[in-house]
């Protein structure tokens, strides 16, 4: 577990703070303002939903918080650390220790078994071989996948794959879970199952959850707070585009 987790243990402190953050892309001649001056705060232990139409910039914001991308201007501060100031090596370490991510398309490595997929972050974290499979197995068992360890992702249902992805995200015990449309590829019943699991992690472990979604109903049901984005800017909940 990373050392900065203790600083964010109080529910009053900010887990994530963005200050006037911009992310601009150049696509040929035109400049695309994926994010255009977003300032927001997410408290530690909060379950926040990022809502917006496609192209509103919600995934861009999530990628910045995840340390996968760097802002064009402004700053992203997670657990008191300004991500812009980190080297790419430090950013990789941040992703490894402080953040867990799940994606719409699960993003499991198809050539690896379920167990190996979950072990992969621990390989990067240089966890001892002996401990590794035990930790991964426990993590998978908790998510009800104890019998699927040696299967390949393609042999699993969508819901099972997302649970594997969740196990992988949690295995290094991060304080922040980032979910990018986690139910987008699932039917509503399995989607609900996954969100129940995420909610449980949020409640039992006090983990901060930031979830990108375009399904307002789900967001209302699970998230403590909703943040709306439209055209790269914060928007009001009544905005028809949200």
């Amino acid at each position, binding site marked *: 577990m990373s050392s900065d987790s203790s600083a964010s243990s109080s529910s009053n402190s900010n887990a994530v703070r963005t200050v006037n953050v911009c992310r601009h892309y150049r696509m040929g001649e035109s400049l695309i303002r994926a994010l255009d001056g977003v300032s927001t705060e997410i408290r530690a232990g909060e379950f926040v939903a990022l809502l917006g139409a496609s192209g509103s910039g919600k995934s861009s914001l999530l990628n910045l918080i995840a340390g*996968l991308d760097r802002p064009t201007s402004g700053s992203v501060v997670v657990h008191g650390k300004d991500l812009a100031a980190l080297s790419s090596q430090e950013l990789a370490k941040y992703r490894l220790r402080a953040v867990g*991510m799940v994606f719409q398309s699960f993003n499991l490595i198809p*050539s690896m078994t379920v167990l190996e997929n979950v072990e992969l972050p621990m*390989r990067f974290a240089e966890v001892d071989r002996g401990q590794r499979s035990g930790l991964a197995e426990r993590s998978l068992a908790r998510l009800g996948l104890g019998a699927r360890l040696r299967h390949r992702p393609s042999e699993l249902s969508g819901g099972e794959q997302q649970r594997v992805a969740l196990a992988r995200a949690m295995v290094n015990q991060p304080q922040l879970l980032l979910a990018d449309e986690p139910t987008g590829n699932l039917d509503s019943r399995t989607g609900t199952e996954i969100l129940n699991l995420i909610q449980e992690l949020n409640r039992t472990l006090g983990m901060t959850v930031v979830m990108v979604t375009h399904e307002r109903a789900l967001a209302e049901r699970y998230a403590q707070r909703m943040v709306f984005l439209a055209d790269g800017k914060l928007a009001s909940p009544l905005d028809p585009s949200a």
Partner: protein
Amino acid sequence: MKAYDLLELAGRNLRESVLRNSLTTLGIAVGVASLVAMLALGVGLQALAGRHLEKAGLFDTVIVTSRRDFRSYEHEDEKDAASADKSRLLDEAARQEIEHLPNVLEAYPDIRFITELQYQSKPHMTMVAGMPFSAKDNDAFEGMAGHFFSSDAAPEVILQKSFAEELMGKAPKRGRADDEISISQLQPLLGKQLVMRYAERVNEPASDAPAAAARPEVAPAEGGSYSVVSHQLPLTIVGIADLDPESMRGSARARVFLPLKLAQDLHVMQPADLRDTMRAFSSTPVYLSLTVRVSGPKQVQSVQAAIKKAGFNTFSILDANRGLQRFFAVLDLFLGIFGSLALAVASLGIVNTLVMAILERRREIGIMKAIGGSDSDVKRLFFAEAGAMGALGGLFGVALGWGIGRLINFGANLWLKRQDLPPEQIWSVPWWLIAGAIVFALLVSLISGLYPASRAAKLDPVQALRYE
């Protein structure tokens, strides 16, 4: 990531596209095999040449000359010794001094002269040399017809094969191996008589009685003139040497050998004596050159150095061998370059395979980065894959090259056998070549992996994950 995990992941990735990676590895193997086969041939030929020089039995021999007489051998090495005018005469005192140097078995004067030998009343001119009795065990007399001298002063001769052929009137035609006369065809010469005509040098004042063989060592009188007396000496042919015991001496090599003691006691006029007419005599015999036998080839260099320090010129087969080594170094270099060409082509295969792998595994690289893999983890993973292909290719290539070499050897020996020549090991794979080839393959592969690995490491994870 830990090294073991890195290798495990690399191995897993290589197995994923097994056909492509095997073909790439095979490419490296062929490259390594050609390198190994080429160098093995170079090394083998060198060893072969070395063995033949050794067979001549002269690896433990040093020839010593006085600097006054000859300045021909080894000009470059003369700087470190006395200059010509300070140099000493190669006289009996010097011979004894050299003989007492460490690691020297014996030092005997080199007696050689061109003279006329009559066989069945036909004259033949050739170089005659004294041969010490100790040469009996020399490898050069292996396969000799007849026997060695019965004593160190016996009136006997051993003929070199080519001279024997001349006596028999059977000079071989050049370039036709099957025309070569075998030693057994020369057997009839054994036991026949040769008459050697020679000029004896008689120091004044001396008795007018003509000197004969077995005359005691004379101390020439001071003052210095001598007369030349002509003699004839009947000699018995006791042996015919198949090999050339004097191959090292080039044009000065003798084709007829007398026992050394006999040759010494004849006091035959030697080429250097003519020059002595312009100089004062020394009271003891002065030699044109000495042949020094050293206890082993390893001691040749130190003995050579010691003799040079004493003020004489030296020459040994090691000097000739140094030139040979230089030649083989160049040969190996060229063979190595040709062999490496295939490996260079194979390295392009590695680059291609890994760049393809990046395109295919774009998403996987993105995932690795998203879950915490660093740029250097990704880079090292691709490096490990390149290295694994290189190491496997190297191992397989060495085996393949070894096989090719065996095949070349087999083919060459088949050919030699058909030419009625003894089999030779023209190909040899030393351990350093095996280890070197594998290390080289690994190195080339890692260098080939540089570009793909850094390209994979630079991949933007957001872009990679968006890519469906």
